[in-house]
């Protein structure tokens, strides 16, 4: 276990280093830097500012400086937001996290239920309809679904808010705040879930189809267990196993996949920060965010391994 953790850790460092390197140098290939985008600056002023921000140094040196700072725990200072990157991300990342997490929850539970049912009743009308909806939800661009839902639920039916995280000017706190935020979350979460649910449902369906054919399912039936127990206890737990590996890539994916949706719904998440960091060449933010996602991927992988071991006794630690 120790050796494993150590191996993982080294791998993680390599990956983090590699990713930061790739992103940094790709970013450097972009024409223009943060200062250049301000068309009104006189060349002298621009030069002054570049010196102030350290943008006049050669790219290598900038990378080394950046790396040094990161290693000493300093992620830098956002040029656009004039704020410490860490505190900046902290402001927004939780909002994204909540939506992403809920979406993950919804995606997985819905995919699990529909996947299992359509596997158990494969080729039934239920299976057909589920398949159809699953593909439909995958087939439309997210901005389109967002606008459609806003139109239906927000403007026409007026049952759900059009955007934001709380009602305008709301001062609610405690439980009513949670309720309010929850109402605002419904559409983004649903749409975000729709994006992922398709492939996952298919995945569960085929995983379940595999499991149902296994001998131990027949044994469970031969023991006279209720069909419910057989499917939702014996079969599902096994079908879940391979899916755990998928989970590792889901979370970072949700963070970066939510950009468009956050934008349209005015959800105060990191999506906009991320986009702006590219648009305005705010490289400390972009780099920090990239590192954050890389870490999430790696940590996700690691957690998936552990979760796998927790669920599957065959790989459990001794």
């Amino acid at each position, binding site marked *: 276990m120790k050796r494993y953790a150590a191996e993982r850790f080294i791998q993680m460092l390599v990956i983090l280093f590699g990713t930061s390197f790739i992103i940094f140098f790709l970013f450097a290939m972009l024409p223009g830097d943060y200062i250049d985008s301000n068309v009104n600056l006189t060349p002298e002023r621009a030069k002054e500012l570049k010196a102030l921000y350290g943008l006049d140094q050669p790219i290598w040196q900038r990378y080394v400086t950046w790396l040094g700072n990161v290693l000493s725990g300093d992620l830098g200072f956002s040029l656009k937001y004039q704020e410490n990157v860490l505190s900046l991300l902290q402001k927004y990342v939780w909002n994204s996290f909540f939506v992403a997490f809920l979406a993950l929850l919804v995606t997985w539970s819905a995919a699990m239920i529909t996947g299992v049912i359509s596997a158990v009743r494969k080729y039934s009308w239920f299976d057909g309809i589920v398949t159809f909806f699953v593909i439909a939800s995958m087939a439309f661009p997210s901005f389109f679904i967002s606008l459609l839902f806003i139109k239906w639920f927000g403007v026409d039916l007026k049952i759900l808010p059009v955007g934001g995280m709380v009602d305008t000017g709301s001062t609610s706190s405690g439980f009513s705040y949670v309720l309010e935020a929850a109402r605002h979350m419904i559409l983004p979460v649903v749409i975000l879930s729709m994006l992922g649910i398709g492939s996952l449902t298919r995945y569960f369906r085929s995983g379940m189809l595999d499991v149902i054919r*296994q*001998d131990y399912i*027949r044994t*469970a039936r*031969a*023991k*006279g*267990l209720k069909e419910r127990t057989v499917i939702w206890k014996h079969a599902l*737990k*096994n079908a879940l196993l391979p899916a755990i590996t998928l989970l590792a890539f889901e979370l970072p994916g949700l963070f970066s996949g939510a950009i468009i949706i956050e934008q349209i719904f005015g959800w105060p998440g990191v999506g906009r920060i991320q986009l702006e960091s590219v648009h305005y060449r705010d490289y400390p933010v972009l780099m920090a965010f990239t590192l954050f996602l890389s870490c999430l991927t790696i940590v996700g992988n690691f957690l998936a391994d552990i979760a796998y071991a927790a669920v599957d006794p065959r790989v459990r630690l001794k």
Partner: protein
Amino acid sequence: MTKPLLEVRHLETVFYTEEGAVKAVDDVSFTIHEEETVCIVGESGCGKSMASLSIMQLIPEAGRIERGAVHFSGRNLLKLKQKEMQKIRGCEIGMIFQEPMTSLNPVFTIGEQLTEPIREHLLLSKKEAWRKAVELLTLVEIPHAEQMMHRYPHELSGGMLQRIMTAVALSCDPKLIIADEPTTALDVTIQAQILDLLRDVKKQFHTSILFITHDLGVVAEMADYVIVMYAGKIVEEGPVAELFSDPKHPYTKGLLAAKPVIGQRRETLYTIPGQVPALADLSGSSCYFAERCEHSTAICRRSSPHFTEFGKGHQAACWLYGEEKADE
């Protein structure tokens, strides 16, 4: 002889596949009496498992029981509702499967899997079920039964798992145990242990056993009564001693002769020529063994033979013995 416990009548199980309808079990009838061990032998794919699974109504999705009746303790199982059938499975009829490694759920402990049917059928509390499970494990000669309850299947050897499967099958004191090739995946020395155990259990609990195997040696050790199947049909059946000493059907004869036996040196082995037919290619109106039979005649290819009685319940389905043969 004691009274019949299970009577299977004209059972027919059909698989609907791309190649057409496959009669995996074709008009099979037999009876199991109380405290009797009945063995079904036959080659792979001849429908042994499907016959037993049809009794339990656990055949795979693609299959359907098209005809027949299965009377168990006076009830026709095929007419029961799903719920009622559930009460019989695991409770009155226990089942042991071929592959102990894959027949236990890898993600649950032995304890969980063993107490499940006990709680489901005997409605015991968790604690009582646990106690009973430990007793069962001790009964099937598992050492350190308490500890074993917390183990996972992959931590145990095949022989142990098969004993645990036996414990599961015994958990609700069934009247009948169906053992579908319980030792095929095991080594000979372990096989001997399991066979011993089954015999003990039968003596102790007065259960009947439906034992499925393709190993004639095992049959000779276990059976009171033997059924020989070929391509979905029963070709011969009879008490074990009769059948081994005086096989009637050419196929049975072939089987007995083809098997090398230690200490019986032969230059070449007797072989049954040809291949086992694919069930899908068979039509109803011939003896399915005709293609490979040395004695086959025109009638064998024309119509399927009826059973001829030889006394003591020994009968075979072969034109060699039918009256029509005389007519030819």
